[in-house]
């Protein structure tokens, strides 16, 4: 082969290899691991399983209500007979995006926990064989769908305490029920819902994350106003909402680790 012919081939070939390589790397913006809180199943207690998502900077996955775009990860468990997995517990999300498209989700790292329940052993037993098929979409400027088949195995370095602390940290980020003494109600007018929260302590900022799509306009600013009793949030209605709703369900987040589940009865005005 002449040098000239070789040159003709070499550059496109090198580019092809480069592109193929870049693609293989760029398509894994999320690394997922299936982890467990303990190495045994204890009598009468659920074993907590978790899907640990580690995301490249700027990339995100979605909350159970993804907001205007995207979709939440979905998992299908493969469990031994006698075991069942409960629903995912979703840690408090963040608002993602600017402009007229706003999403709810997670950046950097998130652990999606689910309880494994089963025939309660009398004595602690070792980890059963567990695997999970996960489908997700990870987005930044663009979106890339991903699939993973994960199998539960003890931590490679044998360090169970690192996994345990991930579960502990995540529990701090799970929405809680409304503190005693707090109360929520909602009023509906032509354009907005006004969510009133009677709080037990002073609240300086708050945001609402709707559980149902198509009720509030996700990208509109949420009008926060504090008052003596607590605060109100004015939430613009979605253009897609054609019928009145009786309950406004979602989270109110008043700070890190302070997300509360609410279901406010809606009164029309």
């Amino acid at each position, binding site marked *: 082969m002449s040098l000239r012919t070789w040159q003709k081939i070499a550059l496109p070939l090198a580019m092809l290899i480069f592109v193929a390589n870049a693609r293989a790397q760029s398509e894994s913006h999320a690394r997922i691991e299936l982890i467990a809180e303990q190495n045994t199943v204890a009598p009468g207690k659920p074993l907590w399983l978790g899907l640990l998502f580690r995301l490249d900077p700027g990339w995100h996955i979605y909350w159970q209500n993804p907001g205007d*775009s*995207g979709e939440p990860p979905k998992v299908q468990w493969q469990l031994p007979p006698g075991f069942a997995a409960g629903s995912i517990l979703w840690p408090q999300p963040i608002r993602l995006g600017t402009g*007229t*498209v706003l999403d709810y989700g997670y950046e950097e790292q998130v652990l999606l926990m689910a309880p494994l329940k089963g025939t309660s052993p009398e004595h602690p037993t070792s980890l059963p064989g567990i695997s999970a098929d996960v489908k997700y979409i990870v*987005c930044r400027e663009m979106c890339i769908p991903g699939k993973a088949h994960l199998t539960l195995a003890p931590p490679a370095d044998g360090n169970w305490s690192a996994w345990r602390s991930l579960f502990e940290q995540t529990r701090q980020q799970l929405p809680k029920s409304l503190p005693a003494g707090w109360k929520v109600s909602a009023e509906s007018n032509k354009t907005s819902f006004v969510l009133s929260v009677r709080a037990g302590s002073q609240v300086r900022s708050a945001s609402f994350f709707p559980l149902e799509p198509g009720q509030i306009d996700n990208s509109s600013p949420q009008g926060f106003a504090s008052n003596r009793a607590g605060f109100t949030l004015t939430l613009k209605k979605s*253009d897609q909402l054609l019928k009145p709703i009786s309950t406004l369900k979602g989270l109110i987040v008043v700070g890190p680790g302070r997300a509360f589940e609410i279901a406010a009865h809606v009164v029309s005005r």
Partner: protein
Amino acid sequence: MTKRFLTSTLALFAVLLASSPIWAARVGEAAPQFTATDTNGDVHKLSDYKGKFVVLEWSNRGCPYTQKHYNSGNMQQLQREWTARGVIWLTVISSAPGKQGYVTGPEENAYLTQVKAAPSAVLLDPTGALGHLYDAKTTPDIFIINPQGTLIYSGAIDDTPSTDVADVSKAKNYVSAALEEATSGKAVAVSTSRPYGCSVKYAD
């Protein structure tokens, strides 16, 4: 007056309209009027199509949700079926220059041939004016306007938010359902749904 000046004035006007709540695209109300240019440089006004059903389909060929409906042939089949039945099907591309899905007219025409797409026209909306006027959120995002100019559907293409081609045949297609009902004089049963897909790649 130069063509460019006219275009930017129109775009600005459309943006002003979009920011006014009176012009929101709400089902049951008059669909916002627009003027937009297609991939061949032809100008389309919504008012040109009074007396016909009009479908607006937001698209971005780089988006995996859009790809699901084009790789499966679902979108092309809907376009073919409904344009044959007299419906005007306008695909809209609101990706800004430099963003995913941005295309020139000739690029898009080549792509339409390649994937055998069959819309009535593809409107190029790089300023996002038309997208914001309708508050299109995702690709795909579908709006259906009746012959009287009323918006009768706004939302997803079907009831299965996923990127899996295998889901297309199992899903309930909201667009077909709405058009079947509306063209036979019935009320549209599902007139809104959460559109699913990638965010529209508007200018920052």
